């Protein structure tokens, strides 16, 4: 069944001419409008940013794990940021923490994850030739690139990059005299974020339009792979929340450069009282977290979508509760907009608002719980093949549990009093948002690498990479819960000033060593990635025996994806191990009428209709 379709496509390739026209290097690799190439551009840029972001964490983990260490050997790299006595500058420490957060959240997990896979997979999995607007898509990448250039340049200026934490709360971020990072570095941060938001909006509009308008025949919303549902809802969240960050940033620009007082009031700094009156720093926090919290789901949902696809494919089972999965994602999408103030329980917020947001926050735990149970049931009685992608997906579910449960502590305003801005929070979001999404990204790369580059990544290296990373991540972030409960505040250069926080130097050392090992393991991945791109085994047509449409394209799809007609879709994407079927998977483009042996009761009816439709087609063509 599927083989016949593949053969047909193979023949089409040979005498297809008008899709494979020669393209110049620039229009093929640089200013390309092909969604596949744009996806790869996002991926490579994201990986580069990932290296920088992770590299920064190595430097501050050196400081936290080995505070006495001589860092003179870093002078060639960091210059004046290493003091004469070989210590890291405390302000640069803050800059590192800030840039690590900004880079990882926005440049790696938003652009790198959703930019890569939404671009790459949406047209391929819904059966479209390209995005709705290839040109806007190209702009989206190049705005991201411009943003990257500006953000990158801020790392190299004399006063250093932004240093007020990735949330850049004013007044610290608004007052150049408060911290060096709030001088030119902060301006560049804001400019970069404006470009970034433009990029995300251009991308998001495109994803939404494409999913709504360009689905192939038969690809109804109830037949969309969960990856597409996830990318679609992610784009919706982004489209509604990023403009608010834009507003927050714009007002901050006004306060910084034009003397307005949106966020500033009653400030005496550097020996003078500032004229600003009547502003409120809390306003910024509301605006920021109105994006900031949905942002968590912007990085989470694509990873969960990828996991759904990978787990179903590799446990050779339909995803359990397809409708419930969509329902819970819809629930998360809506609720993500009404929980933002749980980041502000102790900001001086009205306690009544605190209660409201506590209720809403704990409600969002329910759809998340449903998703976990559905993943577990999907694995149950499966026939699981541990490809590297499967391993990363299972690891992801483990993080989702560990990091999700600690959210129940933090969402409770009483418990948050003690835990707010401690290492408990650091542990929580690095597991549930950071590591989870990185695992989604890695699972996606391992799973779709054969489609992207026509070659296979090395499995064994992938396995080693997974185990080092999985164990490593737990060794880094799990111990942080303990020091969090003990009250260790985050963004501290050193804790020795306080008797209450001067213990646990051994634990911090352990965490740092775990971090170095985990970071080292990522070079296995990098090697595997770039080596396999050129020298990996050639990929077969459908290496994971998967149902979704992207595996019906030629092994290395050209512009337009399908050389011939776009395949029609006759079924949902999760017909794995269907009773009665000859093989353990039936791709989406196989008509029900061709598989009478495995059709379920309600599908028998549908199959009959299918035949009628076909004859009708034939008549109208004639």
């Amino acid at each position: 069944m599927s083989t016949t379709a593949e053969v047909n496509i193979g023949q089409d390739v040979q005498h297809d001419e008008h899709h494979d026209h020669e393209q110049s290097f620039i229009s093929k690799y640089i200013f390309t409008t092909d969604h596949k190439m744009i996806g790869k551009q996002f991926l490579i840029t994201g990986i580069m940013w990932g290296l920088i972001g992770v590299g920064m964490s190595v430097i501050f983990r050196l400081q936290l794990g080995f505070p006495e260490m001589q860092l003179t050997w870093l002078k060639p790299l960091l210059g004046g940021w290493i003091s004469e006595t070989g210590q890291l500058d405390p302000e640069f420490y803050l800059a590192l923490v800030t840039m690590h957060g900004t880079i990882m959240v926005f440049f790696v997990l938003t652009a790198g994850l959703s930019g890569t896979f939404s671009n790459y997979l949406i047209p391929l999995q819904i059966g479209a030739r390209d995005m709705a607007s290839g040109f806007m898509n190209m702009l989206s990448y190049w705005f991201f690139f411009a943003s990257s250039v500006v953000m990158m340049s801020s790392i190299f200026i004399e006063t250093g990059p932004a240093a007020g934490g990735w949330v850049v709360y004013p007044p610290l971020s608004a007052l150049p005299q408060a911290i060096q990072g709030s001088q030119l570095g902060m301006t560049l941060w804001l400019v970069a974020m404006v470009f970034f938001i433009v990029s995300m909006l251009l991308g998001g509009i495109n994803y939404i339009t494409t999913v709504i308008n360009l689905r192939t025949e038969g690809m109804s919303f109830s037949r969309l792979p969960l990856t597409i549902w996830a990318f679609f809802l992610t784009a919706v969240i982004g489209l509604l929340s990023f403009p608010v960050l834009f507003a927050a940033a714009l007002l901050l620009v006004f306060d910084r450069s034009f003397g307005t007082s949106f966020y500033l009031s009653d400030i005496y700094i550097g020996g003078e009282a500032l004229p600003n009156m009547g502003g409120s720093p809390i306003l910024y926090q509301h605006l920021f977290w109105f994006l900031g919290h949905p942002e968590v789901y912007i990085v989470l949902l694509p990873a969960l979508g990828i996991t759904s696809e990978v787990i179903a494919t590799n446990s050779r089972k339909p995803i359990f509760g397809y409708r419930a999965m969509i329902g819970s994602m819809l629930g998360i999408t809506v609720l993500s907009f009404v929980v933002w103030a749980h980041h502000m329980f102790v900001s001086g917020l009205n306690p009544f608002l605190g209660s409201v947001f506590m209720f809403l926050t704990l409600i969002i735990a329910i759809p998340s719980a449903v998703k976990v149970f559905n993943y577990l049931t999907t694995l149950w009685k499966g026939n699981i093949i541990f490809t590297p992608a499967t391993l990363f997906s299972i690891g992801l579910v483990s993080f989702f549990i560990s990091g999700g449960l600690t959210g129940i502590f933090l969402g409770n305003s009483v418990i948050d009093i003690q835990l707010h801005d401690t290492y408990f929070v650091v542990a929580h979001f690095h597991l549930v948002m950071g590591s989870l999404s990185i695992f989604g990204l890695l699972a996606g790369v391992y799973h779709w690498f054969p489609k992207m580059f026509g070659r296979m990544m090395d499995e064994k290296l992938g396995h080693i990479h997974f185990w080092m990373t999985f164990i490593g991540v737990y060794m880094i972030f799990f111990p942080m819960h303990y020091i969090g409960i003990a009250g260790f505040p985050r963004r501290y250069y050193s804790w020795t000033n306080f008797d209450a926080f001067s213990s646990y130097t051994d634990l911090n050392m352990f965490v740092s060593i775990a971090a170095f090992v985990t970071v080292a393991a990522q070079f296995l991945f990098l090697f595997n990635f770039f080596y396999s791109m050129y020298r990996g085994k050639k990929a077969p047509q459908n290496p994971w025996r998967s149902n979704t449409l992207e595996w019906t394209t030629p092994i290395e799809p050209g512009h337009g994806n399908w050389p011939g007609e776009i395949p029609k879709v006759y079924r949902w994407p999760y017909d794995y191990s269907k009773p009665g079927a000859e093989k353990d998977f039936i791709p989406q483009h196989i008509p029900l009428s061709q598989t009478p042996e495995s059709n379920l009761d309600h599908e028998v009816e549908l199959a009959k209709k299918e035949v009628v439709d076909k004859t009708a087609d034939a008549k109208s063509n004639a």
Partner: protein
Amino acid sequence: MFNLAIGLGVVLLLAILFLIFRISSLIGVAKGNTDKLETSSNKINGAMFLVFLVGTGFLFFWYSFKEFENYNLPVASEHGSEYEFLFWTTMAVTGVVFVLTQILLFYFSWKYQYKENSKALFYPENNKLEVVWTFVPAVVLAILVFTGWRVWTDITAPAPENTNNIEIMGYQFAWGVRYPGLDGELGNSDYRVIEATNSFGIDFNDKASYDDFIPREMHIPKGEPVTFNIRARDVLHSVFAPHFRLKMDAVPGMPTSFTFTATKSTEEMREELNDPEFNYEIACTEVCGRGHYSMKLTLIVDEPEDYRAWYAEQESFLKRNPEYLTKVPSDLKELAILKTGIDNKELD
């Protein structure tokens, strides 16, 4: 020279690793048969999940019990014990879920690993199950939320009439503390009159400010409600007193507050912990710049009578800095002199 040797060593090591990788992948090619699923590595990965589960599970329980005394700070406030109850209840509930789901996840991964002759179960949905695991978490969460909400309304309730008001002001990079003096009322402040000495910007137009004092040490009474009136002078700060389970941001332009009752004096805590050096500390938990990590304020909890004695000894700001009498409006000067307890002779 030494660096060069290390560099060469690393290069050699990488080259060897690369060769091993090349040889093993060539062997894979030579063996051929790429269509068949590799079952040996599948077994290893499945087993690894079990090993991981047992190993990390052991570490988790062992460390959590061994270190309990160290990471669980003693509680020294009334609402602190309610906090502890909530925290550990949540820990128990989530702990059970955590252990169960992780066991299921890794056990399933091992148990249902690929076997050539087995086929996965086609089991696309079960609405009953979905309903059950939507409602059970919903009910459990509702209970947690309601208990949390009741404690939250208690903690954030308006301060009682008889509370001890104390002002804490955050600035780069320290805390300032101001007491209301004998009249029990903190005087107004205005950031525009802040100077090196009048670091609080005390507004001398307000009668209540004349007996305010700024002590060298911070003291609070045990067993009485205390309200921290919190503000910031330059950027955001956050008052965090871990033993009291107390945290509240200090916001420029928007005063905040936190009311609590300490239950153990510094002396009692020293005995309990068997640590004669022990002191309660306040730290900053909202990033505020270069010295964020050094914003420490030591706080001493006294028995009420010791507190009163200490309180009575303190000299008002005006008495210590009589030059500020010039800022007092002339019609109030008399009152100010009276209230601050300045000796008239000293003035002359």
